[in-house]
């Protein structure tokens, strides 16, 4: 038992922090939010690939190196630096491929992800199906030696820039709900149309309409026998990893906002003294610090359990329920302590405030994860 980072883990964290400070400064973050840009930085991406970070948490046989914990530590630094979401969406897709793909699919796709030559994303949510696959309407129908996909997806990250989209669709109706499949759809496929959402965090999510999109048999993740129980299990396992990695991003962002705020109240003088010398301010900062530390600890625990194949449903849900609220509350209090100085758009604070709220509302908000915690307590499962 030692919740602290090991020496190697600390080195990785330090190196990621230094690299992101250099290659992902806040000026780049702001530039990539502007309308008309792709939201993606090839230079940053190749730096991340060169450091080996895009292969973290992936099988060594396919170009991977490093554990899911290592990946989480880099994600934490990415959250601190507000690295564009192409990192998150590509990692999410890669994790799903690692869990569900055939050896050939993994060999092809994961090697390209690790090398930095493939941007990817997952298209799962639909406007009326956010957590329960029984309400997914996108369908995959066998056609010739492949499949035809039709339906409408929402909140697809980086749909406009990803080279590859993993589309979750129903292939048949089963007794316990739909049989699901995951299909690789290349960018620009016939019948695929993408229209951007305007989102709170300006973070490149889109609606995606699939109008009779043809894909080959090899496009079904897991091969011809892929669709079925294995898919549902792989999706559940992948989602647990996505949540833990998103928590890592949030924990990193929360720590940064705490540090920005501590700096501000130390330097800002009113009534002839730094406002950080007032107890009311100190108590707020202490509460922010407790929230941030709890977020990192809960996140590291969830990542560690997932990385070591231990049961982690409870710890993942605890991490998301705590960290989403913590990060958001830290940004809300940061605004309070910065006053007008932190409220103008010229100040960077709102960039984290938006990241915090968007992350809180992604992959299930607080109540969703509290029900998961209740279910782990053996209380009647929520019928969400």
């Amino acid at each position: 038992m030692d919740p602290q980072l090991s020496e190697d883990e600390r080195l990785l964290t330090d190196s990621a922090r230094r690299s992101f400070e250099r290659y992902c400064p806040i000026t780049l973050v702001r530039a990539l939010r502007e309308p008309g840009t792709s939201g993606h930085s090839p230079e940053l991406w190749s730096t991340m690939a060169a450091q080996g970070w895009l292969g973290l948490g992936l099988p060594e046989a396919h170009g991977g190196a490093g554990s899911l914990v290592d990946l989480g530590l880099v994600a934490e630094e990415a959250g601190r630096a507000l690295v564009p979401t192409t990192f998150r969406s590509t990692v999410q897709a890669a994790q799903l491929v690692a869990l569900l793909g055939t050896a050939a699919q993994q060999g092809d796709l994961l090697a390209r992800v690790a090398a930095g030559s493939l941007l990817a994303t997952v298209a799962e949510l639909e406007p009326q199906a956010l957590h329960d696959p029984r309400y997914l309407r996108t369908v995959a129908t066998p056609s010739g030696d492949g499949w035809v996909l039709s339906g409408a997806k929402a909140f697809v990250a980086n749909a406009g820039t990803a080279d590859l989209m993993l589309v979750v669709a129903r292939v048949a109706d089963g007794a316990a709900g739909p049989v699901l499949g995951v299909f690789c759809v290349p960018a620009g496929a016939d019948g695929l149309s993408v229209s951007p959402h305007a989102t709170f965090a300006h973070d490149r999510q889109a609606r995606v309409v699939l109008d009779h999109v043809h894909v080959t048999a090899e496009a079904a993740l897991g091969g011809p026998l892929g669709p079925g129980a294995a898919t549902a299990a792989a999706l559940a396992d992948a989602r647990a990893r996505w949540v833990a990695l998103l928590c890592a991003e949030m924990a990193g962002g929360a720590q940064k906002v705490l540090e920005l705020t501590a700096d501000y109240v130390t330097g800002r003088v009113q009534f002839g003294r730094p406002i950080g010398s007032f107890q009311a301010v100190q108590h707020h900062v202490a509460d922010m610090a407790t929230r941030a530390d709890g977020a990192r600890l809960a996140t590291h625990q969830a990542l560690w359990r997932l990385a070591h194949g231990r049961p982690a449903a409870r710890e993942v849900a605890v991490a998301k329920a705590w960290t989403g609220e913590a990060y958001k509350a830290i940004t809300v209090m940061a605004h309070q302590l910065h006053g007008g100085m932190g409220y103008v758009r010229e100040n960077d604070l709102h960039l984290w405030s938006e990241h915090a709220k968007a992350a809180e509302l992604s992959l299930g908000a607080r109540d969703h994860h509290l029900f998961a915690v209740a279910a782990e307590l053996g209380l009647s499962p929520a019928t969400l």
Partner: protein
Amino acid sequence: MDFELTEEQAAWRAEIRAFLDRHLTPELRAELATQAFARSPLVEQFQKAQAAEGWWGVNWPREYGGLEKTAVEELILTDELEYAGAPPLPLTVTSLGPMIIRFGTEANKREWLPRITRGEATFALGYSEPDAGTDLANLRTRAELDGDEWVIDGQKIWNSEAHLATHEWLAVRTDPDAPRHKGISVIIVPIDSPGITVNPLWTWGDVRTNLVFFEDVRVPRGNLIGEVNQGWSYIVGALALERSALGSTGSLQRLFDDLVELCRCTVVDGRALAERPEVQLRLAELDVDLEIAHLLSRRTASLLDAGAIPAKEASMQKVFTTELRTKLADWGMQLLDAHGQLHGDDDDAPLAGRLERTYRMAPFLRFGGGTNEVMRTIVAERGYGLPRGA
């Protein structure tokens, strides 16, 4: 004790609603939904109609052109305007005019009050400076007499109405040698005076505020309000009135009512949001909080009508209501799950983005008009006699 409107108050509310039916046109509503706080021909037309009703003097004595309504009646008006989403009464009417009435010279009253009631003069609050925020008494903008004119030099920040108002209600230092609170005066400055530069500052809440520079700005000696070097008490008095306005609840109630309706008709994962136990509990808690907010604001108003100075009560109301604004927007966005991420610019945004916009605007109300930390200190010290901190 009486928790219902009197007949007279109910009639007043009906009068307000009838006015809103006539003047809050669909065109104006559409415009307000997209750009709050902007000035436009439609908004000006609405404000002229408000002024013609006598509302731009609603709480003033009749001798100054006011309607002499009670604070409770003023609250009814404010709540109705907010609930309907109409342009609010300006602070000039609710907070600054009353200071002119209380502290102004006869000449001040004759010059400014009729222009306010006619809707011809509105004031931007020229208080904060980069080094004088919560510590407002640290302000350094100078005014010196030169013959029959004040000459003003300095800068003001968070000067939110400077691009909309006709004048500045400017806090200036007129005696640099006096103790901090004793050398401050209030001078009214036409916003189009030579030497004024208004630079926009855009905020996260999409509301424009301004950084305003004053360089050798000259105004007539008579633009001084009340007595020289006595301005601090006028500023504090106006802030106290502003606090009640910041603690108003009409727009919160409207957002909540619309959120409940949205939860009834939004179906996700096979069920309406409103059928979910967690949604029901969250909405119920917000309803409880809102009820408390209403009660706190009515108490403040009734104390004002009784002639009291409700410093503790107005501070409590301001803290509670401004923090509830964050909570309502925050929880509303959470109830909508992924859809809560949609920005007001998105055609599919729930409630046309009012939740997310409220979330972005809420911080300003908590630190503006006296930070909530200072407000809490007022509750403890003035309400319960706790010893003053260092």
